[in-house]
């Protein structure tokens, strides 16, 4: 299975600032995703990170708030912009190596906004 590393693992940020989360996979993958998991809740898909093109966002998530990059087949970033306390959550990256393969997840970034 793919090994997925996220940085930072946690952060405490001030309201109104932005934070970029990095996701690195140990081998080339076909698809990468970003999820949000609020305390005690399940995972909600934010967007699909497309290599070399704009990400595909789910309903309720917009590019201005959550810009995503995926410059190659092993790396993606998610930026949480203009943060407010409501953005306090765990942000998870996942990837699929190939057809008929399951999604594998990183350990997440725990973000707290003061």
């Amino acid at each position, binding site marked *: 299975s793919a090994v997925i590393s996220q940085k930072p693992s946690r952060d405490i940020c001030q309201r109104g600032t932005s934070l970029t989360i990095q996701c690195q996979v140990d081998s080339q993958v076909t698809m990468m995703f970003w999820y949000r998991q609020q305390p005690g809740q*399940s995972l909600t898909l934010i967007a699909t990170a497309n290599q070399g093109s704009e990400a595909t966002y789910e309903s309720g998530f917009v590019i201005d708030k959550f810009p995503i990059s995926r410059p190659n087949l092993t790396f993606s970033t998610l930026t949480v912009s203009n943060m407010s306390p409501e953005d306090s959550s765990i942000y*998870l990256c996942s990837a699929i190596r190939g057809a008929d393969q399951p999604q594998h*997840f990183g350990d997440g970034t725990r973000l707290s906004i003061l």
Partner: protein
Amino acid sequence: EDQVTQSPEALRLQEGESSSLNCSYTVSGLRGLFWYRQDPGKGPEFLFTLYSAGEEKEKERLKATLTKKESFLHITAPKPEDSATYLCAVQAPSSGSARQLTFGSGTQLTVLP
């Protein structure tokens, strides 16, 4: 809209006390049903994929089964190290991208020694 409902929300078992977790789903054209285990402070860890009704998968003390409306995760003679949150997710054409998952809210399992 795809819906995934897991029950119970929380389950406490004594070590060795077998039980089952339920995942009910409503989708148009299931492509796959996935079970994950999530430990505190960690990302979900893949356990099983089930594709069609009647299919079963086993791994150590865990066995996953699938019908047309629900999936069960059976835990036989659990140990304290089986304590975790178990997540169920479905993949369907209505989910958007070909590999997008819709997750249930999870069952938090505690196994007491």
